[in-house]
């Protein structure tokens, strides 16, 4: 059975439908890239998959014994209270929360995982800084590190490289690809079509035309051709 199956899914807010009749499957070991224009409903889809909001119709099914606490998630936007006192370390560690069960305090293992991920994303120097005093890109890296701490089976990323500089972006794609090679299933929303086509095994196009399939077939599909054309012409528009 697939890790994730969406059947006849329709998405939206309070009865207002944005996406209609979406069907796709994610198997263990896939790297799915979700592409589409602004406002086409990509983030909404991800939030629905995560159970943060109910679907208007259809169903999201998880299989292979996937349980909620094996999922890592990077939201597109995190509304953090303006005054929230939280250090980088505290936030990254909180990603390990899902493996804690009823244990109250983080153990050596969790601290090691957090430290490793902070190193990966170059946050070691910032460990004791206050989150809200960081730059946008630094904050993004903190949340990414937290998502990596939470991941065991499935990683959902909503525009992970938004606001990152080119060097960290490349490193980020590397980290995700490495995780993928080690068996983590990845679902990523991205406006970076080049990267999507380079790393993904499957593409889901959300928009007026829906497309789901293997990466290579996407280039031949109508939705794909049109979208790529738009992306290229986007700069002159």
């Amino acid at each position, binding site marked *: 059975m697939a890790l994730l199956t969406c059947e006849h899914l329709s998405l939206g807010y309070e009865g207002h439908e944005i996406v209609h009749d979406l069907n796709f499957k994610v198997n263990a070991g896939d790297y799915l890239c979700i592409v589409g224009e602004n406002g086409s409903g990509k983030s909404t889809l991800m939030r629905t998959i995560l159970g*943060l909001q109910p679907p208007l119709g259809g169903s999201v099914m998880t299989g292979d014994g996937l349980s*909620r606490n094996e999922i890592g998630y990077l939201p597109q936007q995190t509304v*953090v209270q303006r005054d929230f006192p939280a250090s980088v370390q*505290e*936030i990254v560690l909180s990603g390990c929360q899902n493996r804690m069960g009823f244990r109250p*305090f983080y153990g050596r293992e969790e601290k090691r995982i957090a430290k490793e991920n902070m190193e990966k994303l170059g946050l070691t120097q910032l460990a*004791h800084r206050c989150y809200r005093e960081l730059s946008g890109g630094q904050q993004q890296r903190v949340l990414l590190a937290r998502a990596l701490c939470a991941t065991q089976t499935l990683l959902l990323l909503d525009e992970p490289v938004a606001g990152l500089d080119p060097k960290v972006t490349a490193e980020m794609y590397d980290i995700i690809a490495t995780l993928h090679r080690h068996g983590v299933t990845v679902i990523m929303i991205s406006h970076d079509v080049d990267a999507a086509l380079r790393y993904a095994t499957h593409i889901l196009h959300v928009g007026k035309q829906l497309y789901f399939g293997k990466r290579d077939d996407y280039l031949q599909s109508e939705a794909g051709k049109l979208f790529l054309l738009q992306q290229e012409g986007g700069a002159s528009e």
Partner: protein
Amino acid sequence: MMEKLVWYLTQPYVQYALIVGVLIALCSSLLGVTLVLKRFSFIGDGLSHVAFGAMAIAAVLNLTNNMLLILPVTMLCAVLLLRTGQNTRIKGDAAVAMISVASLAFGYMLMNVFPSSSNVSRDVCTTLFGSSSILTLSRDKVWLCAALSVIVVILFIFFYNKIFSVTFDEAFARATGTKAGAYNLLLAIIIAVIIVLAMNLVGSLLISALVIFPALSAMRVFRSFKRVTVCAAILSVVCALIGILVSILAGTPVGSTIVAVDIVAFAACWLVGLVRGGQHT
């Protein structure tokens, strides 16, 4: 003066007051940080009025231990308010305002219609602003307060990390399998307990001050959740101690004296924050 203080400290009722005061101040400040950050502090304010209404009913019914009525009623309202608050923010606000003014009005009316003593306005004042009643606490009540506070502190320490994740980013916590709903419920119940406890110390109108001021003060100075929590706890305990002692010596009302000390501490922290902030950037 020193002698007078030492003499007071040997009196059992003063010792009770100090123990209970410190415990209540401790647990209200621990949760204060979360309440302020989750924008729950307004629920706390509403609940304190509910507690006032419940107290009026208890007085009319002539209950010997009024906490047995106030506690469940306040808990129930806390859960209800949390439920409505989750659907949409604005409706939640309105619900809190509605319940809180309704209980105030209802409570005041009850106290007037069924006066339990000859001086109604003094009774009302006592319930709203606290009184020297903390010095006349019965043994039962001291034990109840102490036990409840210890439970709250233990719960807080046990769930500290989970409370942090749910407070910092509820969506992430829920997406990764933390039962955010259950923790919100737990928080609501704990708030109710704290409010009922704190009512004994400072009276129902001043409860929010006890919850909010230490948290806000600590947030001026520190930048990590753990430090803020610890600092708020220490500040709150120290302020409560000073407040109670001053009120005994100077004969001022306990509740407002403690709050006054809290405000002074806030001003001090604000200054420290300014100086530090200037150094950082």
